[in-house]
């Protein structure tokens, strides 16, 4: 059997067909959403609020909500991720138990389902931290922090995207040539000076890539914010951290599953999906480009 020509043909054709199937699947999904959403997509759709009980108008508040959430998430998540990467790559010895614990934690964090992060956000941020803040600062009657809001949703998301940042920054730091570090140390610079003045500037693309990938992942994920901050419809934009917000992915979910007349809003649904897809694509594309440049420089 090991010499049977048919087995060879089968292997090559079968695996080729599998590859082709995957490519086709991607093309079909993309084409469907592009065609379905193209007609409704317009400048007005991007810049207007939903009207007439969400059956007309645009998705501006959802775009703003997604944007705010992603910005807040990056402000918290990227520095923490970068510092963790610095520790793993520059400070920890490979054999140290502490570093291995952290590495294990990062890998585990990457595998925790998004919905469990949502539960954590609810149990920890909203109930525990928010509840505590309300007891400490509030008037004891009105709930301000112990309820879903922009801050808790962003923090939950920041924790979820932490591994993305860490992995990307660490890769960039490993690509910084050893000689550079040695030269810096030989000139009398300390470890922190070397990290700060030599390693970090040389891995700035990795930092950017990590940030962009985290934003892309965060922008598309809906499960963790289902009950930590996203709202079905709001008449006004969020203007403080303790406000709820509308969000693109959540908007798609709500419009396609809970609206009384799904057919009537099909155009809006497709267009919203297209907006989200274009957003994550442009981010991913930027990340791919940055990584490509980084690797090219690492080789050169």
């Amino acid at each position, binding site marked *: 059997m*090991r*010499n049977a020509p048919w087995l060879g043909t089968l292997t*090559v054709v*079968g*695996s*080729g*067909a*599998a*590859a082709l199937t*995957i*490519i086709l*699947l*991607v093309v079909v*999904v993309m084409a469907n*959403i592009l065609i*379905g959403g193209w007609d409704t997509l317009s400048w007005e759709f991007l810049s207007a609020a939903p009207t007439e009980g969400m059956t007309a108008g645009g998705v501006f508040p959802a775009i703003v909500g997604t944007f705010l959430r992603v910005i807040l998430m990056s402000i918290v998540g990227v520095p*923490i991720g970068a*510092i*963790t990467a*610095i520790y*793993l790559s520059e400070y920890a010895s490979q054999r140290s138990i*502490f570093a291995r*614990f952290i590495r294990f*934690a990062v*890998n*585990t*964090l990457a*595998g*925790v*389902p*998004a*919905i*469990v992060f*949502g*539960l*954590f956000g609810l*149990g*920890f941020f909203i*109930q525990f931290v928010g509840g505590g803040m309300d007891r400490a600062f509030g008037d004891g009657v009105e709930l301000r922090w112990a309820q879903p809001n922009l801050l808790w949703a962003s923090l939950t998301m920041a924790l979820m995207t*932490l*591994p993305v940042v860490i992995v990307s920054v660490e890769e960039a730091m490993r690509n910084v040539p050893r000689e550079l570090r040695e030269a810096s140390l030989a000139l009398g610079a*300390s*470890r*922190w000076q070397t990290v700060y003045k030599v390693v970090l500037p040389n891995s700035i693309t990795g930092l950017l890539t990590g940030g962009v990938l985290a934003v892309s992942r965060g922008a*598309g*994920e*809906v*499960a963790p914010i*289902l009950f930590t901050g996203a709202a079905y419809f709001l008449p006004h934009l969020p203007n403080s951290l303790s406000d709820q917000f509308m969000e693109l*992915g*959540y908007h798609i*979910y709500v419009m*396609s*599953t809970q609206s009384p007349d799904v057919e009537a809003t099909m155009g809006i*649904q497709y267009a919203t999906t297209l907006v*989200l*897809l274009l957003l*994550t694509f442009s981010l*991913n594309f930027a990340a*791919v480009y940055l990584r490509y440049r980084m690797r090219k420089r690492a080789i050169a």
Partner: protein
Amino acid sequence: MRSSDLYTRKFHVSEFLAEKLIAATAFLSFAVIILIFVFVFREALPIFSSSEPATHDEAVQEEVETYGEEALGEASQLRAAEEKERRAGSIEHVEGNASLRNLLSTDWQPVSGEPKFGLLPLIVGSLKVSLIAILLAAPLAILAALYTSTFAPKRVKEILKPAIEILAGFPSVVIGFFALIVLATFVQDLFGTMYRLNAFVGGVALSLAVIPIVYTIAEDAIAAVPKSMTEASLALGATSWQTALFVTLPAATPGIFAAVLLGVGRAFGETMIVLMATGNAALMTFNVTDPVRTMSATIGAEMAEVVFGDTHYNVLFLIGSILFIFTFTLNAVAEFYIRRRLLRKFRGG
């Protein structure tokens, strides 16, 4: 002399502080895992601690009443005993208690007059959908990975790799939307299934999310097979497909196994796709064309409407804990396989 002394001392302090600060920040990842563990389990705990004794009292008390009612009817002795047991069970639900028997029942009706928190249909649902997804995704992804690293012409590789990256970049809500609007209709037209949204549609949609994970890790594993092995095989006269099938693939098996495990973990925990595409009916069947409600979708759909501290709330956290433990175990096993087995195998240990 003095100033240089000062400089060195200040210098050391800042160095020391920087290192400690960095280590402390790095520790945060570990702390988060612990916190997730603590806080998700903490909210699930009341089920086990408070309900049991109270339930017992209720049940005993109700038994008497049930006998009374039963005496009015003319059921046989056996029937009465059965009925009594059933009633006693249902009384616990009225109280909103989640006894072990309630949790292991086959009904999930959390917001009825007699809330029933049977987790079995949800567990079966999750397993069913994940199984369909991995059965579809794993062969496709592994074969495609084999193809890229062995047979693929450069041009195909240049299309396939970005295609996989694009697939990995699809937000799950987009895949869910596609499944809900397009795929479900397509499947129904093709097979004439009774329900538009069912486990099969959910599984197919989920496989789209699983393919990139399995592909990426399987391809890594295949690429990590030492060149000396494949070259030796080719030098001995084996053709390229023989090398791929009988040398590369067996050598990469542990990594591919890990890829499949991580794929299962992703499928099991994925929420939005199954929430949108599976119909969300908590049926305890093994038919793939029935609607199904998974554990993750149950949390996603119900958590926003539940009263804090309610039994229902606690049960949803219990489901989250089960999800967490399950994916945690899968990841740990997968990592073990990738790290240990692969290394040992290639070092010839």
